[in-house]
């Protein structure tokens, strides 16, 4: 059975990475080693700034403000209070507060006490808060966590789950504490913060970031974004979103100022407009969706001169529009990075003349970061081959809090792709990417956005990436929606639905033609829904779960809808509607584009035979898949059959040639 057979061809595998590509894409690309104070903590760096500019304004909220010295003293008091409650290194403190000066005091106080802070957004539902508190308790040997909150939020935390400290109500107890500096208990290898992000199982997972990783990022960010200038930064985005870490710490180690903004309840995303209209900041870190919201604002007199954009795909057109809307020169940065790699690990500065492709590139690795696109076997992939993005370097999180299994799954030690023999710790991002022929890294969305449609495995991110290259598509999301059909064996038809926001009306034909240039037919969405704006999460990312159900009214017809006209077309369209669970089908709609496959094809043919009384074959459907085309065949078959049948009227007949 195991005899050796002649092998004519070699195995077909991924094309190996050529030496020149390996040097360029793996070695040179990741030569990012840079000095930073790796033995110090973020508190040490803040303290340096307090010494340098004690009387400069550090934070402002409306008319209230604190200088660096005051902020330092207030946070010393906070740390002393926490210390008196037994909080020290190794403890985890939940910070459940609205945007305020106090929240920054609380965070600095927690860090000075040597503990780690867990930011929870003020809009977080009670159930999720309880899950996080229980997780912290389980992960710290059953110890009840301390939660710092405000009087109006207090009721959201169950007193059985946390020792609650109400900062505004209990402020007096802090003021009794000494304001003088005590040696910070924070250590460079201690955990600075834990940010809980959504888990695929529905349970949030906490990402533990050490001071050393935080210092590495903030040290780099301060140099790139502030360039030695003290800038005013708006604190408006959710503290539970790691994008906000930049806004929180970069100003405090560069002599800048935090300007606090509080969103109005129910219209949280509008706070970004408040920031712009207030015109009190120089730099802003935000998502592309938030940036899109300010595009139409009057920005002629704005003092904003720098934007750091992150979190989602960033369209060049948006960057261009912002550049045009502001009369003075602006710097726009695209920053990429998962929470697990400490905020940002890739950067690209937008250049209006050079960046011509649809999306702003995600650029090159940040200081001390390594970015690799690897195959399933952890081998670097060559140009035009999709792989998964892995991150290495000093920004990598310690792991997931109380989740050794998940940490082991996502943080792997593998052979260093640069030299092929030493070992390297890598974070498996779950993001797909590929190198273009020009050596540019293309981001293709999440690997877990892989779905199976009509038996074919499809990366939704690849479709989104292509759709975003359409010059007028500003934002988009592609989702796979299953519709139950027939019986259990057939299960459901999964149809791809593309949601998009565009700067001008686009027809489905235009969108399909654009997609078809690069994608397989099976990857082209069946339905297109044009939205005025994408629904956003509190973090300013596209909220996929809030995308509207596609309805007959919202779905853009694939062609200009032409209703079935003949009797056969009407009957056929009704039959397909019933079979494919679609509300309406036009003359030019294609059976296969609507999700017809496998057993459904056989069912369709069987029903057509029964209803029309002619021998419709599978082949007819393949050759003439639209309602109009197939109805014509059916009419023809019926006509031929009738012509051969005996005449109905018994009287005399005449036969002529026409």
């Amino acid at each position, binding site marked *: 059975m195991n005899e050796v057979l002649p*092998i004519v061809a070699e195995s077909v595998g991924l094309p190996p990475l050529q030496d020149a590509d390996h040097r360029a894409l793996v070695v040179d690309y990741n030569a990012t080693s840079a000095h930073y104070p790796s033995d110090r903590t973020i508190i040490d760096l803040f303290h340096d700034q307090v010494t340098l500019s004690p009387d400069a304004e550090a934070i402002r909220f409306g008319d209230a403000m604190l200088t660096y010295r005051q902020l330092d003293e207030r946070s010393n008091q906070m740390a002393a209070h926490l210390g008196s409650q037994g909080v020290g290194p190794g403890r985890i403190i939940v910070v459940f507060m609205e945007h305020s000066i106090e929240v920054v005091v609380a965070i600095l106080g927690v860090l000075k006490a040597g503990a780690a802070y867990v930011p929870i957004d003020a809009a977080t539902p009670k159930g999720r808060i309880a899950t996080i508190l229980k997780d912290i308790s389980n992960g710290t040997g059953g110890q009840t966590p301390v939660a710092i909150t405000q009087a109006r939020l207090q009721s959201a935390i169950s007193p059985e789950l946390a020792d609650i400290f109400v900062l505004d109500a209990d402020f007096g107890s802090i003021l009794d504490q000494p304001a003088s500096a005590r040696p910070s208990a924070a250590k460079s290898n201690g955990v600075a913060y834990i940010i809980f992000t959504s888990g695929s199982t529905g349970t949030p997972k906490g990402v533990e970031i050490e001071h050393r990783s935080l210092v590495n990022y903030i040290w780099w960010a301060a140099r790139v974004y502030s360039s030695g200038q003290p800038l005013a930064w708006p604190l408006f985005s959710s503290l539970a979103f790691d994008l906000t870490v930049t806004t929180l710490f970069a100003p405090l180690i560069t002599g800048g100022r935090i300007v606090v903004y509080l969103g109005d309840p129910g219209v949280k995303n509008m706070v970004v407009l408040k920031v712009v209209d207030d015109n009190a900041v120089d730099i802003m870190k935000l998502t592309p969706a938030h940036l899109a919201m300010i595009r139409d604002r009057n920005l002629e007199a704005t003092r904003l001169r720098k934007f750091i954009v992150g979190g989602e795909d960033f369209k060049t057109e948006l960057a261009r529009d912002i550049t045009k809307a502001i009369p003075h020169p602006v710097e726009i940065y695209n920053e990429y990075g998962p929470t697990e790699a400490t905020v940002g690990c890739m950067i690209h500065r937008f250049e209006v003349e050079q960046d011509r492709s649809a999306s702003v590139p995600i650029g090159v690795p940040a200081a001390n970061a390594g970015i690799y696109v690897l195959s399933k076997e952890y081998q670097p992939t060559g140009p035009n081959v999709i792989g998964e993005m892995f991150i290495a370097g000093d920004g990598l999180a310690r792991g997931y809090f109380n989740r050794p299994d998940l940490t082991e799954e996502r943080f792997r030690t593998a052979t260093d792709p640069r030299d092929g023999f030493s070992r390297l710790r890598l974070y498996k991002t779950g993001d797909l990417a590929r190198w273009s022929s020009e050596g540019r890294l293309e981001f293709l969305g999440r690997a877990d956005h892989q779905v199976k449609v009509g038996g074919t495995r499809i990366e939704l991110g690849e479709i989104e990436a292509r759709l975003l290259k359409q010059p007028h598509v500003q934002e988009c999301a592609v989702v796979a929606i299953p519709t139950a059909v027939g019986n259990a064996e057939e299960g459901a038809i999964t149809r791809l639905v593309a949601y998009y926001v565009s700067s001008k009306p686009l027809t489905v034909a235009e969108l399909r033609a654009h997609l078809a240039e690069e994608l397989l037919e099976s990857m082209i969405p069946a339905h297109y829904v044009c939205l005025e704006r994408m629904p956003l999460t509190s973090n300013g990312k596209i909220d996929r779960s809030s995308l509207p159900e596609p309805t007959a009214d919202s779905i853009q017809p694939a062609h200009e809808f032409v209703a079935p006209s003949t009797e056969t077309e009407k009957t056929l369209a009704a039959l397909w509607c019933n079979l494919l669970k679609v509300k309406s089908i036009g003359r030019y709609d294609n059976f296969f584009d609507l999700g017809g496959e496998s057993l459904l094809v056989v069912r369709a043919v*069987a029903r057509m035979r029964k209803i029309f009384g002619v021998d419709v074959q*599978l082949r007819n459907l393949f050759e003439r898949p639209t309602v109009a085309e197939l109805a014509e065949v059916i009419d023809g078959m019926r006509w031929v059959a009738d012509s051969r049948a005996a005449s109905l009227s018994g009287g005399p007949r005449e036969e002529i040639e026409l």
Partner: protein
Amino acid sequence: MQAQVTQFSELLADLAVKDIKVWVEGDRLRCSAPAGAMTAELRDQLQGRKGEIIAFLNMATAAATQQPAIIPLQSRGTRTPIYAVPGHVGAPFSFSDLSKHLGGDQPFYALQPPGFDGQSEPMDRVEDIAEYFAGQIVQYQPVGPYIIAGYCSGGPTAFELAKILKKRGAAVPCVALFGPLHPATHQELLRLLYFSAWGTIRSVRRSMAKLPTFGARLRYFGSRLRERAFLPLVRKEPVTTDPVLASRALLKSTAMAAFRRYTPTPYSGRVCIFLPNKAWLRSGAAPHRWRLVAPDAEFYFGPEDCDEVSMLEEPDAPAVAELYRRATQKLRD
């Protein structure tokens, strides 16, 4: 265009109501009508649209007399057309991904076995199925060359089909068998048990390799063992009243019976055997036995991680298409 079609359909309806029959004889359009029904006005109208009516009737006649077995997945292109026999379920769609990856210049026809349409009877001999396909192919494309392909248990039918066509003088430059099962797999009980176990182990190992931790692998393995423990030794097909599912089940069992009783005999033409990967040689599918009847059979292997069960689908279809292109390079025009 819409208005024209509507009018034409109204014209046909009008003729039907008046019991007027129209048919084509060569390039002539003839008509039979009850005495007095054919008015001068109607006659003028029909004569004015004579070309349109002839085209419509020719299309209809062609549709009504076509070869039902020929499913054109891709009917354009200049390369030698491929006629492909699907596996035992007979689904022509199983070649869709491969056809797409072979490109727009490669005509590709899937062959629909008798019984798949739910109205004809399935055949229980490979030789009969092959004979039926040969007739359909020659009616559709009277002159070769033809490339004959087969997938999985459709491999033996493709092999037999190529022999029949060749015996009748048709040019068959290549028989392309994709992951073919040799009938011996199902004729020898021990081999069948080995083949089933091998497939299960490969599938379990592949699934386990994707799991991150030893613990997760152990849990998965345990769950598979439990599943297996509760499976009856002989799996019975569920009884169904759904005619489509019932005809599908009948087709499947008849096709397997045909496969089991078939014994391949020598063939002198070129045979290319595409296996999902080198490990498939040890699968029990007995690919080497094809060399007993086709001594010069060439073997081509897909990538190591190619999934045996879905070698013609994404994501393996591009690699298999590339193998096919390499194998047939010399056949290219």
